[in-house]
């Protein structure tokens, strides 16, 4: 039963993630996408902006789906937690250590995600701003990695290819140019 707590290789995890697309179609003809849930939450909270004026209840399957993801995160991350840190490429680990980020603090780096980091003003703002860009960008691009880079690409939709190129361009800029600077502020 060791496989329950040990990391799964890409050739197991990838196909399982891909199967989410036909699974949601078979359950109720739904398009796999996760960031729409953020819009539904804003709509459910009663925003009066036109963008949030629609029958969110008809889309509420998506809220049940993301609630399920939270549950899955609890099962895999708490009940069946992997006791070992993420095994990184030594080159990546070295680069992180140079920037003052520990490469062996578990599933997430403590410099960014420990309580101490989250409750510091700079650490809090870093995560809030990162989240803001994710939420804003996902709605502007009409989807995130699940809706575009998995579902849309699999359905050969051109918009999803454009979005995926954008995701990677932004991610490369963030990881190579913004992150080193931001981590300097966090130290």
């Amino acid at each position, binding site marked *: 039963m060791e496989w329950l707590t040990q990391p799964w290789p890409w050739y197991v995890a990838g196909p399982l993630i891909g199967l989410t697309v036909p699974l949601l179609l078979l359950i109720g003809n739904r*398009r*796999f996408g996760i960031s729409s*849930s953020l819009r539904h939450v804003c709509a459910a909270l009663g925003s009066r902006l036109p963008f949030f004026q629609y029958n969110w209840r008809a889309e509420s399957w998506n809220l*049940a*789906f993301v609630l399920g993801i939270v549950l899955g995160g609890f099962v895999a991350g708490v009940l069946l937690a992997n006791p070992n840190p993420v095994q990184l490429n030594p080159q990546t680990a070295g680069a992180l250590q140079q920037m003052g980020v520990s490469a062996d603090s578990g599933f997430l780096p403590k410099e960014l*995600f420990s309580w101490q980091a989250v409750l510091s003003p700079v650490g809090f703002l870093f995560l809030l701003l990162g989240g803001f860009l994710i939420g804003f*960008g996902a709605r502007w691009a*009409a989807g995130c990695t699940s809706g575009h880079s998995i579902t849309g690409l699999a359905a050969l939709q051109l918009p999803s290819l*454009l979005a995926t190129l954008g995701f990677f361009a932004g991610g490369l800029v963030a990881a190579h140019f913004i992150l080193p600077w931001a981590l300097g502020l966090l130290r």
Partner: protein
Amino acid sequence: MALPIRDEFELQSKAHTPGAVGLLAYLPYLLAGAFFGIVAIRSEIASWYRIYEMFRFESFHMYGVIGSAVLTASLSLWLLRKLEVRSRDGEPLRVRPADPGRYRYLLGGVVFGLGWGLVGACPGPIYALLGSGYAGALVILLGALLGTYVYGLVQRHLPH
């Protein structure tokens, strides 16, 4: 110039019937989500470390996950079409087409990518990390809700 409201995909037309039957209808989605959440943690795609490693091109793992996921999904879609599988109300199963804009995908995509590269989690992993008990995920989620709201506020002034 104010533009009309853009909808990304056609939203669902049929409303859910509320009540006990309606609640039970959510169960398959809840379980599908739990399945996805478990895979997201076990495959470590929800780990900041893996995302950083990916953007440095120092591991094949993330590319393998995304590539084989797309391939599997694509083959499944082909098979569903080939077998002419239909939903319970007789509709053909299909991936709803996206809004035909261009700029929105590139520009919005870059903005999303900037956030993804910084906090190392896209929306699926944010929810999975929340379940794993990381307080940081709650802050990211709060930011993402804020970003979603502000997009709704300024949508008309953005190129799509």
